[in-house]
């Protein structure tokens, strides 16, 4: 048996193509994807209504309510900042549109547009204050959180004399706006809420921006090391203010969904605590608190996990007292898995 031994051509290992497996494993969202699959199988086994395909619409809707906001919150966390005012900002936006349209008897669309401008302004203010003072975003957005929470209740009371805004359901433009923000349609046996469609569109656009454009690179750079990014010409200030404004835009969208879904009425006390759900979705999806790492798709999967657990517990008929404990344990587990996978992938 003669064999010719040829030494393999020595390739430079810095430019060799990594195997598909290694590339997959180094994606930030891989941990959450595995988690989502495990949870899905788990509830398919334990909860009978979970198996009915018609009920997918309910689960997706619950996920979209968190998921739409998880898009900008993920981007913001990759950019190295976070926003505690995101939860109440949603309510603020819904109230702005509702109260303005009602008080001045305007076409509903005027209220919607003004609310958009106002939400973007809140985001810009957060970003500007952060860059101007150099305070941590935790403190800046904590201040905004309390201001908005107070404004929500105080302004609603002054204008409507109650704690919920007056209904705008019989005003011009309500039908058209509802069709865009809060309608639903049948797809087979599944009732799909329009926000689910928007959510998928938003995730796709944001993922493309993050991975394929210069702006995406700037976001990673600004979050990874702001000083170094500045040194190579990344407009860090603009990027961060833009990210906060993105949170404002999506808060506006979610706020409009809130307004048009509940008959043109918004309860002024809502939204508190939601900001943590958005952050949870982003973190479970692989974003790091320190910035510079993460993914938009991961945030979407995080929102889906949240909704599967929340409704899975209900569908299974268990005592919902356990839900929060379950959620916390899952959050820890997900972050640990993310860390292990990330370290493994980097070690290869």
């Amino acid at each position, binding site marked *: 048996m003669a064999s010719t031994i040829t030494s393999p051509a020595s390739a430079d290992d810095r430019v060799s193509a990594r195997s598909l497996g290694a590339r997959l494993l180094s994606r930030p969202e891989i941990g959450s994807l595995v988690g989502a699959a495990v949870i899905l199988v788990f509830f398919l086994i334990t909860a*009978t*209504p979970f198996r*009915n395909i*018609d*009920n997918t619409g*309910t689960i997706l*809707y*619950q996920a979209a*309510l968190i998921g739409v906001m998880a898009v900008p919150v993920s981007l913001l966390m990759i950019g190295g900042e976070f926003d505690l005012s995101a939860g109440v900002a949603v309510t603020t936006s819904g109230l702005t549109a509702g109260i303005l349209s009602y008080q001045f008897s305007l076409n509903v669309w005027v209220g919607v547009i003004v609310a958009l401008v106002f939400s973007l302004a809140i985001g810009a203010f957060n970003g500007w204050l952060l860059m101007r003072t150099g305070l941590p975003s935790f403190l800046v957005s904590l201040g905004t959180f309390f201001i908005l929470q107070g404004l929500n*209740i105080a302004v609603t009371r002054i204008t409507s004399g*109650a*704690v*919920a805004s007056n*209904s705008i359901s019989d005003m011009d433009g309500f039908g058209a706006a509802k069709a865009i923000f809060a309608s639903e349609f049948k797809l087979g046996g599944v009732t799909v809420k329009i926000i689910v469609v928007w959510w998928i569109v938003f995730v796709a656009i944001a993922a493309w921006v993050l991975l394929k454009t210069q702006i995406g690179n700037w976001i990673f750079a600004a979050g990874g090391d702001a000083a170094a990014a500045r040194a190579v010409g990344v407009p860090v200030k603009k990027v961060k203010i833009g990210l906060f404004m993105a949170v404002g835009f999506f808060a506006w969208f979610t706020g409009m969904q*809130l307004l048009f*879904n*509940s*008959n*043109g*009425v918004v*309860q*002024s*006390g*809502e939204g508190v605590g*939601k900001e943590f759900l958005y952050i949870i979705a982003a973190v479970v999806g692989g974003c790091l608190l320190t910035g510079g790492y993460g993914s938009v798709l991961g945030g979407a999967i995080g929102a889906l996990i949240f909704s599967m657990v929340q*409704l899975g517990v*209900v*569908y299974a*008929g268990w*005592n*919902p*007292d356990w839900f*929060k404990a379950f959620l916390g344990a899952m959050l820890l587990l997900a972050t640990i898995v993310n860390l292990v996978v990330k370290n493994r992938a980097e070690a290869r």
Partner: protein
Amino acid sequence: MVRWQKKAVAAVAAVALAAALAACSSSGGKQKEQSSSGSGGNVAGTPRMKVALITHSGPGDTFWDIVRRGAEAAAQKDNIELQYSADPDGAAQANLVQTAIDSKVDGIAVTLNKPDAVIPNVKKAIAAGIPVTILNGGLDRWKATGALGYFGQDERIAGQATGEKLKQLGAKKVLCVIHEQGNVSLEARCQGIKDKFGNVENVNVNGTDQPGTQATLTSKLQADKSVDYVVALNAGIALTAVQAVKDAGSSAKVGSFDMSKEMAKAVQDGTVQFAVDQQPYLQGYLAIDAIWLYKNNGDTIGGGQATLTGPAFIDKSNIAAVLKYAEAGTR
């Protein structure tokens, strides 16, 4: 381990054991707890049903725990499997109603304290042929949904009854404590007291912050010596108000809405003058039982009108009868 270490470990263990034994209490604690006489016993021979109870309660709320116990009692007796779920967020509560529809339950009992968010899905459930009962909140909106019945208190009427009571007690100026900014039912209670009594001042506190509530009330009572009655809108706040009255050196008396174990004791001791009870146990019980009656005999309770579960006044004269139920956690 060297010998002296072993000895030290043994000595510590012995001391700990002795302390543990000596630490047994001769009074109170778990040992005193009687097995609460639940509504065990016979179960109805009607077919097994699945009913969802969906409230807007936050996690760990005493009041809603009592509602749930009432619902559980009715479910046990009626051969019903009860699925409890709750979310304080309007949109999320509406989605829980949707999950109940998805699960093809035989009936839904739901609170309408966030009517605009929840009503569309209540209508959906009724359209899908699921009987729905409303409890606790939504008095002015429930009829339009086509629900079977409403079991709760009219907060304005309860407030007015309290105003009358305060007149009888000879109060001069009342402080009405709102512990959740933006809660419609709480506002209605204070408004009802104002309707009948007049000299009422509202004060806002944060109900989830007990020390802050106490400080706010103390400073309020110190600033305004003319207040001679504090009306709290839940049991926990009332007990905090008792402390605040002491701290302020005020002679004001305390009245309250809603019951709890501690409240029953306070009424007995005379530290709280009266409690306006809306009988949450009854709300949960009737909301579930009404579905069973409708399913098995086509009955509706209330003849198309709301069934009021309160106000029931509890004071020194009738506390003895209520106390044992309060201790068992059903009043």
